């Protein structure tokens, strides 16, 4: 079982999500929040999807949520992931950021049998390189 599941790593210098990776490197789970209406937005957008304000700030959110959906990838469909299957992909709703759905893997595939919609889940941070710290899900 390997993490990350693929050698394809996020580019932490991509300006749109750079604050997210700066956050994870410090063990923080940060998402863009509209400074006018307070709604969290993911993925980052030009304008708030609710009030159309262009002003956002990246706010920390508790690294905890529940499973919205999941799938277990059993045949590799991504170059470099051949040795990683089976691995679980989870889509999480975050307790403190309604409207945000976050996509990641189970940290430990031995939890595959516990996958269930609604399962309470915590986020752990895994340092892959000094620049790339990736969040993963652990079912509580």
């Amino acid at each position, binding site marked *: 079982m390997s993490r990350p599941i*693929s050698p394809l*790593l996020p580019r932490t210098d991509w300006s749109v999500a750079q604050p997210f990776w700066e956050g994870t490197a410090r063990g923080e789970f940060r998402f863009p929040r509209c400074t006018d209406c307070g709604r969290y937005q993911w993925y980052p957008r030009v304008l708030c999807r609710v009030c159309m304000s262009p002003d956002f700030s990246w706010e920390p959110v508790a690294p905890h949520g529940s499973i919205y*959906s999941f*799938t*277990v990838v059993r*045949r590799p469909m*991504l170059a470099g992931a051949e040795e990683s299957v089976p691995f679980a992909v989870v889509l999480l709703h975050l307790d403190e950021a309604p409207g945000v759905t976050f996509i990641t893997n189970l940290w430990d595939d031995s939890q595959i049998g516990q996958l269930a919609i609604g399962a309470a889940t915590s986020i752990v941070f895994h340092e892959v390189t000094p620049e790339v710290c990736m969040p993963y899900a652990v079912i509580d």
Partner: protein
Amino acid sequence: MSNAAELAIVGIGATETAAALPDDATRLCVRAALAACEDAGLRPTDIDAVLSEAHDMPEIFPDILASLGMSPDTCTAHVGLIGSGAVATPLIARALMSAGMASTVLCVYGLNLSQSGGFGAFHEADPFKANLEMPFGFFPQAVYMAAMAQRYCHDHGVDPDDLGYVPLSSRTWGALNPTAERRTPFTIEDYLAKPYLSDPFRALDCCLVSEGACAFIVTTPERARDLRQRPVSVLGGARAVEPETEHEYFGVRGSYNLPARYSGPAAFKEAGVCASDVDVAYLYDCFSIIPVMQYENIGFCAPGEGLDAFKSGSTRPGGRMPVNTHGGLMSHSYVPGINSVYEAVVQLRGAAGDARQVPDAEVALVGAWAAQEHTTLILGRS
């Protein structure tokens, strides 16, 4: 809409399809266009407008028009995305014809994916997906829609194994269609014995990857009377595009309904028909959960009941609501959206042959999906 031009489909054409073909997309489109002209009894110079989808076709349009020898005042326009866009072209044709800008319109679409990087290439090029999804293995389309299917089955208390009835239904029709790429019938036991690809999907829950092209020609009912084939009327149609970004749609959107819930009712209203008037339906079947959701979203049944239609046999030959009589994207070919317009016209002409002709087919519905966009087109026997 009462002042809008009426449309008749008077010619259809298609190339062979296969996982890989030697012809590039331009050549495939030209061949399909010539076949549609031949079918109608028209020459390319009789065409005064050429339409297609907006995602891939604009780049090759000059080559297609040059090959067909189109005159400099030929009107061209593009609408929508792969699958959905080509099915929406009659809506643009109607606008052009109502404005007096065209009278005989060629609608064409073709693809050669092996020459454009494969089905995942478009998604790989998206930096949101490349940076925030692919590192976690949320790629490609089969994985996105497996997660949608997982949630759907949970919400409606449906056994995910029943998804197999969707490809089974497509294959039952494909077995009757000489041009289908997959013709070997299988049972639900065969389906269940296959390994998972990405839970709850197996390879059979996914559509084909094909190369090929289709074309059709629309004109006025008056002009149609002089041409070779029995015309098929465009009764109505609608295209809906939800305000969702491409990269959010399949995952972080966190919900799984389709824009068919807008385009379906709008198309019915314009056509003056309702779901119970439809004799045959074409529901975009890229992955098994998608026709189920369209069946519900368009209004054929209530939420959660869509899979029953496939399980009960009502979508199969002899059933109450035949779906994808060509074999669909799953068994016929992946020339998305437009291959269903082709088949719907064949059915409404009464020309499908004994094996798969839907008896007395008078009204056909074509639903074509592309993420945040969906087109519903309603055709009628003239």
